[in-house]
């Protein structure tokens, strides 16, 4: 091992992809015993830099120095040998294998030449897990343990490789608050042992709690490195977006119009919905809050016709949608922007243009023939008005960042001339700048007298954007809260079933009785 002050130095690294300069002359360094946060919007180059360090991408220029030694021609295996461990957002675990097997997957201890030494494997796995304060049987299959525990298995895996540099890509993205506390405890212990940790995150709140230094990237360029003790979050946000963000949630006032969606006592045994009643009017944004698994996605899928329901009624623009499929909802001017954009919103290998017109082929080309000129004009129009960052409409959607992919899904529903827009977690995995833009588009839809239904797990978002909020718990709507009365505490207590207050009714919407929560 070298005696360098730095575990890792990245000097003037560049990386070019077709049509995009993903990294442009970026520098970065990591000392032993520090948590160095990598901050930037989606598409800023964080993931690319991370993959360069881990040897998954080879840089087009610049150099990497690990432990004072130049590390050229890296590949993932070589990087691992040099002590670089990486934990991607999507874990690399084999779900059907147990915890110990996953930890030692590429270096299973053997005895008698070929037999796996199970006793030793489990013993060593237990030791490592104990050092991480993790309490899970090493014989449990990884598919049966929680996300936080799976993450710890990944950390343990990195430790078995004697990693001294650990890269974590948005490690808190799918953890609960308590799990995050536990993770931070672990990270601090690793730091105390002299490990250098590169931590990628979108969550501004947690930066100061866990980080020592922060480096900001924007559009593939290095913007600056700061000591977290000496900066304000606001100044970091300014560095990230290159401008003042101001108020993230802007509110526009529109007088609600006619009711366009009416749900009456909707129930479905299969997906666990009980007697759900709600409505949506023109010119309003209605929020759907609740815990993950409370039935919000199931409700909008049932409304959209993607799942069957066994009782109750959905009325859209006065039409009874009994037995409808998504194609009927699309014809009836409803658009759903699903939570899982990559699986349900887009066909990633197809072009931006093909994705944009996927839902409106019959409407735009009623003769059944695709007019290339008309297609290009339309798609270029959406690219311009929604500020979709892509070299052209023929670029494959997989190369776009999360925010731009979401804009393509939105363009798809603008092309069908939808008037009811259902957003399921519209800003998940999207950076601050694109978030703002999405909120702007939602407000513009509201002003154009369209109706917006938004599922969101981010309470500031749901409170900041919605005119009314329905709170769901265990497949039922337990409260309807008007915007001006909503507080985070109130919504959380409804969502979690802590009966602090009787369910309130919307003042604006006449008094409709709310269904009781099923126990």
């Amino acid at each position, binding site marked *: 091992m070298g005696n360098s002050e730095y575990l890792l130095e990245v000097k003037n690294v560049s990386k070019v*992809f077709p049509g995009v300069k993903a990294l442009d002359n970026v520098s970065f360094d990591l000392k032993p015993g520090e948590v160095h946060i990598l901050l930037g919007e989606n598409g800023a180059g964080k993931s690319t830099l991370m993959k360069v360090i881990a040897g998954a991408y080879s840089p087009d220029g610049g150099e990497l120095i690990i432990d004072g030694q130049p590390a050229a021609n890296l590949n993932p295996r070589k990087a691992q040998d040099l002590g670089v461990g990486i934990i991607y957002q999507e874990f690399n675990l084999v779900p059907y294998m147990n915890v110990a097997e996953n930890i030692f997957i590429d270096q299973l201890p053997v005895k008698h030449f070929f037999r796996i030494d199970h006793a030793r494997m489990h013993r060593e796995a237990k030791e490592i897990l104990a050092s991480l304060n993790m309490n899970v049987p090493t014989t449990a299959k990884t598919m049966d343990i929680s996300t936080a525990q799976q993450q710890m298995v990944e950390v343990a895996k990195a430790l078995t490789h004697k990693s001294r540099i650990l890269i974590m890509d948005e490690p808190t993205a799918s953890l609960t608050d308590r799990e995050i506390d536990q993770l931070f405890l672990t990270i601090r212990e690793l730091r105390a042992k002299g490990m250098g940790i590169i931590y990628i995150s979108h969550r501004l709140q947690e930066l100061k709690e866990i980080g020592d230094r922060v480096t900001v990237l924007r559009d593939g360029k290095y913007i600056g490195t700061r000591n977290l003790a000496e900066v304000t979050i606001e100044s970091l946000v300014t560095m990230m977006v290159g401008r003042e963000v101001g108020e993230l949630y802007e509110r526009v006032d529109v007088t609600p119009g006619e009711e366009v969606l009416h749900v009456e006592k909707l129930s479905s045994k299969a997906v666990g919905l009980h007697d759900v009643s709600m409505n949506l009017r023109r010119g309003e944004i209605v929020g759907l809050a609740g815990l993950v698994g409370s039935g919000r996605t199931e409700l909008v899928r049932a409304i959209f016709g993607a799942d069957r329901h066994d009782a109750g009624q959905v009325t859209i623009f006065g039409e009874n949608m009994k037995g409808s499929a998504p*194609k009927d909802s699309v014809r009836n001017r409803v658009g759903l922007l699903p939570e899982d954009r990559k699986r349900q919103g887009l066909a990633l290998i197809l072009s931006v243009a*093909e994705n944009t017109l996927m839902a409106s082929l019959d409407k735009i080309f009623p003769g059944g023939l695709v007019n290339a000129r008309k297609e290009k004009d339309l798609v270029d129009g959406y690219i311009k008005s929604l500020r979709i960052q892509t070299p052209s409409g023929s670029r494959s959607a997989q190369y776009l960042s999360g925010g731009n992919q979401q804009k393509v899904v939105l363009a798809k529903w603008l092309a069908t001339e939808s008037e009811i827009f259902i957003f399921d977690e519209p800003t998940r995995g999207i950076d601050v700048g694109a978030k703002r833009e999405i909120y702007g588009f939602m407000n513009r839809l509201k002003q154009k007298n369209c109706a917006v239904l938004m599922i969101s797990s981010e309470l500031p978002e749901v409170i900041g954007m919605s005119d009314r909020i329905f709170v769901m718990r265990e497949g039922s709507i337990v409260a309807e809260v008007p915007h001006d009365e909503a507080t985070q505490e109130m919504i959380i207590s409804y969502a979690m079933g802590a009966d602090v207050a009787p369910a309130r009714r919307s003042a604006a919407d006449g008094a409709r009785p709310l269904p009781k929560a099923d126990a």
Partner: protein
Amino acid sequence: MSIQTAVIQPFRRKLSQVEPTTWASAGRVLALVVLCIAIGMFSPVFFSERNISITVTNACVLIILGVGNTITIITRGPDLSTGSILTITAVVAALMVKAGIFFGFAFGAALLFGAAIGLVNGLMIARVGLPSFISTYGLQWAVFGFAYAILKGYVVYDFEPDFRYIGNHNLFGFLPMPIVVMVLVVLAGYFLLRKTTLGRRFYAVGANTDAAYMSGIDVSKTVIIAFVISGVLAALGGLVLVARINAIQADIGAQYLLTTIAVVYMGGTSATGGQGGVFGTVVGALIMTVVENAMNLFGVPSMWRNSIVGALIIVTVLIDLQLKRRIVKTA
């Protein structure tokens, strides 16, 4: 301003914007050209007018069936039943003509029958939910068995000239009708896939069935249409084949069983769906046919031919995959 900044850099930028699949298609055509030149250098007969005409005509039925499979593979998965559809529909048409029925009716009946079998495939896949591989493979055996039961090992041959027109007539005295039919099918396939909304739906369903469904596309209907088209094209291929060789027996379609699917993959159409096109299939089929032709010209012993074809399929698809991958990485 130097040449570097004025010419080369903008050119590089343009090059880096070319989609990987475009590179792969160019590579495929180049491989075919190199292959032809190499064969021609060792065997001058290869470039004779007669040999070219025979080789291309031989490729026609393969291409016609391949276009059908290109559509089903883009949409959902391979249609393994085309060889047997070809057989049964050709048998039906041949027997009708032999029985003295007007050849036009025989043609119509064959195409309709092909459509009907394609419909059965489509319904089993889209409505019952069978994997396309299982449905079409099972149907293939059932249909072949049916053809054997009808013909009982006999050969039916010597048909009336009208029936044979699309197989052995030369348009304008020099252009074999199979080539004319093949070119029309390829152009129609290209038009359908690239210029119609139905074609867009094929790609959308194949690229991401869930996203297509959530976009309001009638997925089952789209899949059913793809297999019906494949059935009709298989029947058309059978009519061309039987008209050309002027005879039919129950194993006539056996040679096309998997070759049809292999040439689609060799042509760069993705096995996972949503990507590819008919021109690639044409090139794939030509590579296959040219190599078979070369083996005839060089007198390769028949025992080695299968191994060579097998290696050819693997190498071609491998090159295609490498080309697509490499360019994504480095460009």
